[in-house]
């Protein structure tokens, strides 16, 4: 067995660290981009719809219809605008200035008072399916509630048989920021772990420094570890920045254990680093390495992780795909770590999966890293 030398390891490690510190683009990707993303998720992007522009086409002006409009005006979810001209409202819908139109037909109040079916039409802009669904669900809800109110006002003779009592755990206000902020950390980690490492190693090949290193006594294990560790620490540093900002600036609660967070992040970073090293030693070309890193590192962490888009809603082949990539497990762990104490049953399988994937990537990367040119 070849002797592992800590001195050689340390020398290479120091070199790598100095290069990280000196390259402005490393700094850009490890600290500037994370800051941007944290601020965007913290202040900007949200899944919680509010003040969606909604039009009400009022063909019937009786008090009953007025009271329905008031119901819409009273909710924070819609910014309601009443109109009498169908064509004008439809034009606004087409142009995207309105996301839905509630049509109150001519004989609406008459039907209500008479107790005959009162048709009510909701027109939606289907080109924005998220908003269309939202408008449909909430408008239906507003109308139903209003209807119940109407009934109760007129006939107080009965009560509702079932009354739903929702309780939301971990995030009572269902504030999407508290979920998106932790989730975005996965994306940042995979950028540092995969894209940055892949580029840096590919550059060593392109510039010929790799050839010189290979002819020195440094052992492959030493080089491998010394290459991993600085980016690992950089990743942890960037993670600490993101977590602190989320907690102290944006007030996302942290209820889990920091130890679990650290452990999960470490495993995830190791997997990403392994992937990055694997890509770069397989391609040895910066452009191709960056393209493959985006495909296998960045996009899965964004799309296939469950942080924005619900995995269970995807078609099964894509769901199957999410199991191969580590972000799925990591996002689950990190979101739980913030909002809840992560139970063992959730912890162990996800950590286990992360560990296995990390091991596979690292082993492949180590096998691919040979001290030879051909």
């Amino acid at each position: 067995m070849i002797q592992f030398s800590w001195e050689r390891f340390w020398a290479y490690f120091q070199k790598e660290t100095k290069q990280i510190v000196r390259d402005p683009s490393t700094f850009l990707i490890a600290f500037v981009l994370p800051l941007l993303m944290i601020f965007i998720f913290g202040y900007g992007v949200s899944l919680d719809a509010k003040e969606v522009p909604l039009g009400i086409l009022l063909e019937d002006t009786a008090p009953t219809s007025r009271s329905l409009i008031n119901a819409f005006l009273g909710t924070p979810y819609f910014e309601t605008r009443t109109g009498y001209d169908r064509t004008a409202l439809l034009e606004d819908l087409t142009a995207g200035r309105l996301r839905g139109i509630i049509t109150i037909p001519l004989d609406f109040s008459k039907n209500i008072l008479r107790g005959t079916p009162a048709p009510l039409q909701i027109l939606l802009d289907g080109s924005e399916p998220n908003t269309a669904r939202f408008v449909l669900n909430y408008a239906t809800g507003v109308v139903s509630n209003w209807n119940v109110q109407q009934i109760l006002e007129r006939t107080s003779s009965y009560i509702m048989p079932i009354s739903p009592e929702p309780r939301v755990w971990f995030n009572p206000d269902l504030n999407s920021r508290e979920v998106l902020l932790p989730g975005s950390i996965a994306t940042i980690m995979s950028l540092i772990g995969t894209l940055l490492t892949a580029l840096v190693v590919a550059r060593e090949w392109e510039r010929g420094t790799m050839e010189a290193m290979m002819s020195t006594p440094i052992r492959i294990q030493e080089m491998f570890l010394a290459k991993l560790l600085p980016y690992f620490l950089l990743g942890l540093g960037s993670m600490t920045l993101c977590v602190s900002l989320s907690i102290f600036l944006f007030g996302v609660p942290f209820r889990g254990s920091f130890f679990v967070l650290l452990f999960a992040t470490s495993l995830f970073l190791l997997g990403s680093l392994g992937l990055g090293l694997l890509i770069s030693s397989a391609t040895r070309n910066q452009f191709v390495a960056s393209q493959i890193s985006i495909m296998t590192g960045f996009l899965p962490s964004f799309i296939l992780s469950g942080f924005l888009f619900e995995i269970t809603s995807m078609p099964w082949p894509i769901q199957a795909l999410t199991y191969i990539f580590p972000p799925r497990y990591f996002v689950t762990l990190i979101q739980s770590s913030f909002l809840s104490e992560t139970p063992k049953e959730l912890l162990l399988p996800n950590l286990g999966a992360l560990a296995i994937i990390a091991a596979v990537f690292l082993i492949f990367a180590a096998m691919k890293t040979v001290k030879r040119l051909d």
Partner: protein
Amino acid sequence: MIAFFQPYSLIWTRINALIIKEILAVWRDKKSRLMLIAPPLIQLIILSHAATLDVYNISLGIYNEDQGWYSHEMIQRIKGSPYFKNVYEFRNPKDVVRAINTQQVIVSLQFQSNFSRLIAAGETAQLQMTLDGRKSNASQIVTGYLNTIIQDFNRDILTYQGVRLPEPLDIEYRSFFNPNIEYILFTVPSLVAILSMMLAQMVTALSVSRERENGTFDQLLVSPLQPWQILIGKMIPAMIISIGESTLLMVVGLFLFEIPFEGSLLLLYSSMIVFLLAMVGVGLFISAISHTQQQSILGSFVFMTPTMLLSGYATPIENMPHWLQPFTNLLPIKHFFIIIKGIFLKNIPAYEVWVHTWPMALIAIFTLSLAGWMFKRRLE
């Protein structure tokens, strides 16, 4: 006559040579040709199906202490709903807690032992719903689904109990442009825009820094090409490549995913040219300030990620705070999203296209002049 035209044809010959060279540089090499075609297609196929905020296949837990008919009927109705896939029944409240904690289920319903008795007695029975707030979006939507089921059931129970209810409101909906509110109709046109944007930007961002690294840039600078001619020679190929790319993606979208196309191709392509010009400007700017390919790649990333997040693709712009919304107007892709979806699905009139094209044109003029200025500055 000939003497008059010659200078123009001379300039054209020069720029033309540069354009052909640029296209060959990306197209000739098998590896980079593959990188041009395969990743966008794979991304289109995966992303168009994966990127949905809709919630299906919901797993739900039930802890039922009630032996009566009402809870049983309620559970049947949930099982019959298309949204719920797995319904687990638990015997122990601890199991419920565990199931939510471990994300086995996203919501659980607890029927108390007197549930059916209360309803039968004409009183109100409480139905406890416990939701996993770690999935804020899904929880919200699931609550909506459950409320609808409960309200329908309420109405039916009241009818059974002989209460004469006024007729329900007959709510019907019509979704314009996308009758079944399918996500894919939204994602495919959006992805055409995103993927061709990424390509236009990457190709230009790399084109100058690669020449710098290879030392061929000096060769261009000593040639009779003027800096503005070099810029045009870099712009046009990126335009051709990215327009070709979006055409390919659109063809796949129209024929493989059967996305409808209602509007005018002419309007689409003319606005696309303006959009891509703006992005090429950004790419050239990044290229002008980068020393190495690595810096170009990472620089593009730092620009692209926030752009994607704020573009309205991942989450609607209306959800953003008011102060932030005007800033999204600075992103060309925000405008182009409106145009491309409008033309694909809505057949929006030329006037509406124009309303969103001129801001892009302004941005294009700005980014291109900025790139040109930066470019010239670095030559000195």
